[in-house]
């Protein structure tokens, strides 16, 4: 509970507001640093996919674009299967219509969404009457190194994470006030989060179940109309979307393939890697402090809310074991959960320091907070400066021209051909990489022999383009076969182009 005799630093609302504002400005600033660099620093396949979709949407309604370019842009957009509703992409496309196409638009939206998530963490702390702890939790959420990188990515995950934070805030608000208004708000925000990316269902369902169970009586829970209303509002958007995706459009079914690998659950090393990745992302100290923090909540509501979210996250890991140890961004929902768990511990400690007499303890608190933030910003800045990708644009553009916009080709690449498609305006069919082969083997799929696969893949194609030297090196059968039977018509720094129209027996 907030003390009546709060120390001066925090009894003046504007001082607290200044501190919060400084954190938000710093968080935005570091995310906008090196803004115009290519999005190769974090899961570029996923980001270029969004870029292609956004560009296709934009070009579809761009009358001044050359027809060939519009056709290609739209075709590249349509070729991307449906995974989540293209909300971020639509926003970016709309913005392109106002300011023109810029690769950094998605980055700005993602960053702003993350900051909005921070606001939810802060508001939740306020609702818990733990504003002092909220400052630390907010700083953690905004300046966690992994979060700083991931939240600049043109992917739905930043928006999803923010909406998870907002949903947790709304769920708690509902629990606290138990009004229809708060119930509907909780339902809408939770439903939106799940709509943006369906995996949000795991922590949010866990949190909601935890919260409801904290009320104790099962009978009371079952007869509570608000609970049913929240559940209904939450599920409606996703049900509509899945109905559209699976039944009407029919393109959503692909996203369920190669996702479930229950065999991994029997492997003890899976759990070690999971804990390691999770602790590496959210920070070892923060993770365990946050867990311990759950025990300090003075009410069952928030306690069960966070425990439920944790359990949901664990179930999420069991459902997607392969992705949990290969796709770091699958752990993003853990960041708001850990941040919320930090609130009571931080509040306890900060409150104790700030009640002390004299300005030194409070100045030390502010100083240490800003030092910690500055260090993390410096780390992020260094990483951005040391990784520059702008030079790649010309490379892929030139390669696209060399291939020719009208050519049909098979591509062996390290990024599913996304950079060539985006900058080079050419898209080929994809030759499986070694990692893809391994994934299919793990899923128990049987692979066709090389000759059959090769014949199927090159049917009707003009060229075979290789843009990944490591893959080229690691696929000796393909390398030997292509070299032996097809003329190499072009070769440059990191690429090889074979003419499939001329077969040398």
């Amino acid at each position, binding site marked *: 509970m907030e003390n009546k005799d709060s120390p001066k630093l925090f009894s003046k609302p504007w001082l607290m507001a200044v501190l919060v504002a400084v954190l938000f400005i710093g968080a935005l600033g570091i995310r906008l640093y090196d803004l115009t660099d290519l999005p190769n620093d974090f899961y570029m396949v996923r980001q270029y996919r969004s870029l292609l979709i956004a560009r296709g949407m934009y070009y579809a309604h761009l009358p001044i674009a050359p027809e060939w370019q519009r056709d290609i842009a739209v075709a590249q957009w349509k070729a991307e299967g449906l995974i989540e509703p293209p909300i971020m992409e639509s926003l970016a496309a709309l913005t392109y219509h106002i300011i023109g196409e810029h690769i950094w638009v998605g980055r700005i939206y993602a960053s702003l969404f993350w900051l909005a998530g921070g606001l939810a963490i802060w508001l939740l702390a306020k609702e818990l009457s733990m504003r002092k702890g909220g400052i630390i939790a907010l700083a953690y959420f905004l300046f966690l190194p992994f979060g700083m990188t991931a939240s600049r990515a043109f992917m739905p995950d930043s928006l999803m994470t923010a909406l998870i934070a907002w949903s947790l805030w709304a769920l708690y608000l509902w629990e606290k006030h138990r009004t229809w208004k708060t119930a509907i708000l909780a339902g809408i925000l939770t439903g939106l989060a799940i709509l943006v990316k369906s995996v949000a269902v795991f922590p949010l369902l866990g949190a909601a179940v935890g919260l409801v169970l904290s009320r104790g009586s099962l009978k009371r829970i079952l007869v509570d109309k608000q609970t049913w209303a929240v559940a209904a509002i939450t599920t409606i958007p996703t049900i509509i979307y899945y109905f559209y995706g699976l039944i009407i459009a029919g393109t959503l079914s692909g996203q369920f393939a190669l996702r479930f690998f229950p065999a991994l659950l029997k492997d003890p090393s899976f759990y*070690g890697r999971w*804990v*390691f990745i999770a*602790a590496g992302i959210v*920070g*070892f*100290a*923060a993770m*365990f*402090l946050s*867990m*311990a923090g759950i*025990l*300090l909540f*003075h009410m069952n509501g928030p306690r069960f809310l966070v425990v439920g979210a944790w359990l949901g996250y664990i179930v999420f890991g069991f459902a997607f074991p392969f992705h949990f140890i290969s796709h770091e961004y699958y752990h993003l929902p853990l960041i708001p959960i850990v941040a919320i768990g930090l609130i009571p*511990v931080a509040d*306890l*400690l900060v409150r*104790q*320091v700030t009640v*002390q007499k004299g300005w*030194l*303890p409070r100045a*030390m*608190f502010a100083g*240490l907070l800003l*030092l*910690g933030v500055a*260090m*993390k910003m*410096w*780390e992020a800045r260094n990483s951005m400066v040391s990784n520059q990708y702008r030079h790649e644009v010309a490379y892929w553009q030139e390669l696209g021209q060399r291939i020719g916009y009208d050519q049909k080709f098979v591509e062996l690449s390290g990024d599913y051909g996304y950079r060539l498609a985006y900058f080079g305006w050419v898209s080929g069919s994809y030759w499986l990489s070694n990692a893809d082969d391994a994934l299919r083997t793990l899923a128990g799929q049987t692979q066709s022999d090389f000759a059959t696969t090769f014949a199927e893949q090159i049917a009707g194609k003009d060229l075979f383009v290789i843009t990944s030297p490591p893959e080229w090196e690691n696929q000796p059968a393909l390398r030997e076969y292509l070299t032996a039977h097809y003329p190499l018509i072009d070769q440059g720094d990191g690429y090889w182009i074979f003419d499939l129209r001329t077969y040398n027996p």
Partner: protein
Amino acid sequence: MRLLFFRYFVFRERPWVWMLLLILALLAGFGLRMTNLTNPPLDFAPTRQLFSALKARGMYYQYVTDALAGKRQLAISLGDVGTVEPPVLETIVSQTYRLTGEHLWIARVYSSLFWVLGGLALFLLIRELASTSAAMIGTLFYLFVPFGVVASRTFMPDPMMVALIIFALWALFRWQNTASWKWAILFGIFAGTALFVKNLSAFIIVGGFAGVILGTRGLKRSVRDPQAWVMALLLVLPVGIYTLYGVLKLDMTGQFALRFFPEMWIDPAFYFRWAWTVNWSIGWGVSLLAAFSVFLSDPRRERPLLIGLWIGYLLFGMTFPYHFFTHDYYQLSFIPVVAVSIAPALRLFFERFFERSPGLFPRLVLVGIVLVGLAVQSYAAGRQIVDSDYRNEPSFWAEIGDKLGHGTGVIGLTQDYGYRLAYWGWQGSAAWFTSADFGVRYLAGQDVNIMEKFTEDTAGKQYFLVTMFGEYDNQPVVKDLLYTHYPIFAQTDEYVIFDLQHPLNQP
């Protein structure tokens, strides 16, 4: 039955339960450090470890009467690697060799033992300062932080130094609270021994001592207190005598060179690198929590000591700005500082926890969280220890040593200034500068003419050995010089030996 056990034994403040848990923790910490025991000591600060290994072997061979005369003499001469600190650990190890034979892992056992014993003192210190629960967590942090695990099983004086620092701080705090002669003398003995083992311990110990004298006892009172004078005298006496002896007799002046770079103080990058080093070695989160926690301590009883420790650490970093991020083991003494400093925060946490969670279940959950945390840290440390395998190194260096003939007249651009060659190859060599060596001299304002240095260093030498090809590529002048003017005596993918005695043409 199990529930009854937890309810009545684990969560009651029964000293024997805590002692049992502490013993288990210390044993587990020691056991973890025994993993991959016989791996050659190249996983952490190999130059420093081999320095001690050579020294210990040289000492041991002075007692080996049944060795071939040449070998014995060679061991003694290769062990003459100079003096940095008093060879305390080397003496203990060499004396143990006399009982067990020469095994490099003996040093690992001693260092690990010292570190773990330091955990015992740390527990007692934090228990006195905060609470038993806080002491347990602080000790677990000290025992299982991965950087500490890896660094505390090394053949270096640092683990022993850290342990002695902790014992000294414990005695200091006991003295602060009791003002008895017993603790004053014990502090003097522990602190004096710590400084003797490695004088860099002075920063933390003197910092803590000054904190207690100025903040708790008061300067006026302390000046009139004979106990304080005895403590100070015991603190400086051994290291004072040794340093005087070293400067006058052992030519130790060299160890003071290339250490102080005050111009780095005005470079912001230095502070960020410092913080980065702290982050990866100990953890930024826990370090910030520790700093913050100082202000949760009792202003009169606890805070002076803690502030003294932090100021000591900061002065340590300012005094050795270059070494603070090039020599990560300089951070070792910061581990107990962090462990002690988080104690007030832990005390507050446990007070609130016990108040809000009186039931058994939350306590079991907390135990579970601590155990998972320990498992993760142990796994991280264990992986680092197991993943680095250097067992192929001894035979590699033995082969080169045989090729070079174990005589004099070798200069090399080889790992660890030629210590690997000396230890496993039984071949002494002069070390040609690495780029880092050139760099530190440029930083100190020295000008090094490579051609002149090459001529000077190779004068009278028979062979130039290269095993560090990355370094070799970084020094194109030397590379060109050797390939153009000297024939290759022997060569594999892993080494090249140039014959300096029969140049192809005059350089």
